[in-house]
């Protein structure tokens, strides 16, 4: 039997993946590995040395300034997640259940913001919230306020801007869950004597929980590493992790602190995404 001829060649899958895998290893894994190692190196006179140290992390976790940055980043992440679930759920429920002939268009409109850069979308909020912006004009115009208010820079403005930018993600995630719910379940619950509200809380909400949790974690993880919105709607006094990394590296040229902060960000994102994946796995098992 001479079936060996088919086996002795270089396996086809290695030929296929060689180039793309090399690109990813050199330009994705290697840079991240460099960054990880830089976070354990001492920085002197804006240059990395070869001395290993944990001082970078110690510094970040002890200075009130950076603890405040962590706290603000965390608060922004949680708030954006909550706001987007609260806004995303009714929208997703409506889009899944509506019988409107405009359904396709409505879905497209709710997802279309994903096609625009966050910079562009946040710019709209800049126009609205800045001291001489639309919000102040309107409020002055109808006489609710007498003097112009500084809505931004502020943590609140960052939350509003990010919640706006990331809303489509929760809508998509919750729609995915709701689409998987047999509409007859609602009828079944009502035929068993549950009113609309009880049906919602006992049937719809529990079944869409994976989509809600997954959407929350996804939005949370994107929000804590977002740069553009905090850069536009926040200021030096309202730094978050991403803007702090930028100023460490581009303005202060302190690679090791920037790297350490980036590593903290990576670890938190990965933990969140792992949790989201676990929820996804549970959904798949059901």
């Amino acid at each position, binding site marked *: *039997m*001479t*079936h060996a*001829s*088919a086996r002795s060649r270089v396996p086809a899958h290695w030929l296929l993946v060689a180039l793309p895998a090399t690109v990813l290893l050199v330009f994705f894994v290697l840079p991240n590995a460099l960054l990880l190692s830089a976070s354990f190196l001492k920085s002197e006179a804006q240059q990395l040395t070869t001395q290993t140290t944990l001082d970078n992390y110690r510094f970040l976790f002890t200075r009130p300034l950076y603890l405040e940055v962590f706290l603000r980043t965390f608060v922004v992440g949680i708030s954006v997640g909550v706001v987007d679930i609260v806004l995303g759920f009714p929208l997703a429920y409506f889009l899944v259940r509506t019988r409107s002939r405009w359904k396709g268009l409505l879905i497209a409109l709710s997802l279309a913001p994903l096609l625009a850069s966050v910079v562009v979308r946040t710019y709209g909020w800049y126009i609205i919230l800045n001291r001489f912006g639309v919000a102040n004009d309107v409020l002055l115009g109808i006489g609710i306020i007498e003097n112009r208010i500084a809505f931004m820079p502020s943590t609140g403005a960052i939350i509003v801007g990010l919640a706006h930018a990331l809303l489509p993600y929760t809508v998509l995630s919750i729609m995915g869950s709701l689409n998987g719910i047999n509409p007859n379940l609602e009828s079944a619950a009502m035929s068993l004597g549950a009113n609309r509200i009880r049906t919602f809380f006992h049937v719809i909400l529990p079944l869409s929980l994976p989509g809600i949790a997954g959407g929350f974690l996804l939005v949370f993880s994107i929000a804590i590493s977002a740069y553009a919105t905090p850069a536009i709607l926040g200021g030096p006094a309202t730094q978050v992790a991403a803007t702090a990394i930028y100023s460490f590296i581009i303005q202060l040229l302190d690679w090791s602190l920037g790297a350490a902060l980036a590593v903290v960000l990576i670890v938190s994102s990965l933990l969140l995404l792992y949790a989201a994946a676990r929820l996804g796995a549970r959904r798949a098992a059901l």
Partner: protein
Amino acid sequence: MPEPALRLVGIEKQYATAVAVAGIDLDVREGEFVTLLGPSGCGKTTTLALIAGFFPPTAGEIYLKGKSVVDLPSFRRDIGVVFQDYALFPHMSVAENVAFGLRMRKVAPSEIAKRVADALDLVQLKGLGERRPLQMSGGQRQRVALARALVVNPAVLLLDEPLSNLDLKLREEMRVEIVAIQRRLGITTVFVTHDQSEALVMSDRIAVMNAGRIEQLGDPADIYERPATRFVAQFIGRMNLFAGVVTPDRRVRTVDGVELAESAPPEIATGAAVHVAVRPERARLVREKPAEGLALAGTVRQVFYLGAVREFHLDLAGGERGQVEMRNDGAAARFEPGDTVWLTASFANCRVLPARS
């Protein structure tokens, strides 16, 4: 004797954890219609895929028209395959689907057009060449798949459960039609199915497969009338199996002591456990113990009225159960549940099979 069109010698296919095909030898004559019949998981589809060259066998040789093809990839084997799900190319029209094999063989475009038209004509799809497969019914897709496999004049036509996705009525029509086309073209065909009636109606010969092996190879009447093993007896049609033993004088004695007048088959050793196999429709019920033939005492447990026939389920005196199917005439109507009866069959209608088979 002429060279067989297709010859399998000691074909095996092993996977890391399982053996799919455990050694198959099979000769298919030129123009013959051979069916691989067996339950799911018996290795019949794997065998077909090995003939088609979709993956190599672990051991064994495959000859097509006398030449070894075991090292050739599928596309050099000169075969035609009809898949269970038809596997039509959804992005091509019906005519393009049928033309595909000819294009791959670099046939001249003018000839392709002619042969495609002829093939569509053959499967009664004349004029539907511009349709897309997705616009067609299951039966029509089946015909396209058949035309696509036949148009290249393959050395062997391989059919993998092609009828199992059709509804009953269409399935029965297509049986007849496929056989008619196969006979007209005289094309060597290997057909895979788990449906025994399909196999009986369509085949020149049937290979009954079980656990990766061929249990019995023979024409439909052979397989039905003279099953070689207990598996074949039970897989094809229904069969009563009564336990027995070969006596020193080479007779067979059943559990309740009845001895069959005829000798046990010579290949079964004296003292070996055997089964006496009787088809329900070859057995009868009688009130009195018959003078000769197989006779087992019992009582009628249940009677099923099936229109043309009546089916009787019996509890036999030896503790076994039996079934008898009788034409629905006056005689059959006289037996009721609870009646004490004899199950009887002539020796010609009894088969003696080794118990472990």
